[in-house]
């Protein structure tokens, strides 16, 4: 009989969750993940349902469930316009970030 806390047979690396993988096994864990289109789609689906069931699909869901999504959307769009906000215009002699910093 195996003692308490000892696994009778070792779990294969690729079935472990990320937090259970040891640091030395990390490259082999990454390589063994399913990167096919259906695998990536499955990952998105799992992530979506994990968020949905935790924050929205509850008896007394609050507005924060959807506000977090919108906040992430704002940050995502900001990352798209970051490059343009940082370009230095010769005509104004500043970038948009510097101009906004001046008013604070």
């Amino acid at each position: 009989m195996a003692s308490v806390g000892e696994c009778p047979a070792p779990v294969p690396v690729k079935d472990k969750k990320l937090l259970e993988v040891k640091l030395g096994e990390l490259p082999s864990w990454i390589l063994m993940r399913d990167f096919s289109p259906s695998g990536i789609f499955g990952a998105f689906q799992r992530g979506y349902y994990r968020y949905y069931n935790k924050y929205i699909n509850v008896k007394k869901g609050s507005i924060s469930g959807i506000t977090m999504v919108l906040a992430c959307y704002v940050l995502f769009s900001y990352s798209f316009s970051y490059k343009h906000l940082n370009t230095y215009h010769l005509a104004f002699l500043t970038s948009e970030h510097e101009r906004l910093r001046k008013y604070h």
Partner: protein
Amino acid sequence: MNENLFASFIAPTILGLPAAVLIILFPPLLIPTSKYLINNRLITTQQWLIKLTSKQMMAMHNTKGRTWSLMLVSLIIFIATTNLLGLLPHSFTPTTQLSMNLAMAIPLWAGAVIMGFRSKIKNALAHFLPQGTPTPLIPMLVIIETISLLIQPMALAVRLTANITAGHLLMHLIGSATLAMSTINPPSTLIIFTILILLTILEIAVALIQAYVFTLLVSLYLHDNT
């Protein structure tokens, strides 16, 4: 100043690939479906809203017109969510692109007109001449009515594009004006109020969706069922 102002309307790209596709696909994530009768709060509110609008919209159609109800309800939901998401800072609104609005307007209008012409030719052609016109005016009026018919899809598309684009531009302008005035002349909080009011009025972009779908509906109804 010019390039700065219109920069938010450039379609975003990731290494040259259109990320606008991702942004257009984002609103459906906010509208979950469910297979249960009693759901969580988000789905309940959304279903209530959809029931309200669809009943209001499809009440005036007969059986044949109501076959379009799925198309029209999804249209109004799409345009409403897309316009409202565009009010968030730094976000990209796909409905500011004329190409997308034309792609929405032309097939729907053409479908309605062709359906009307196929089922009742006489009724469809009768639209070109209003009742009780004096005889000498008839040729001119037919031309005018034809032009007004052919211009309907363009009007639908350009109306939506122009309204949303103008609203966004105004918000940008007034925002930057407020920032400039805050150092020059602090008591000019009136401009800040103007921004707030403008933002609220811009949430009547949702009313614009009403306008869009409603005009579409009216045209569909007239062509199909009269």
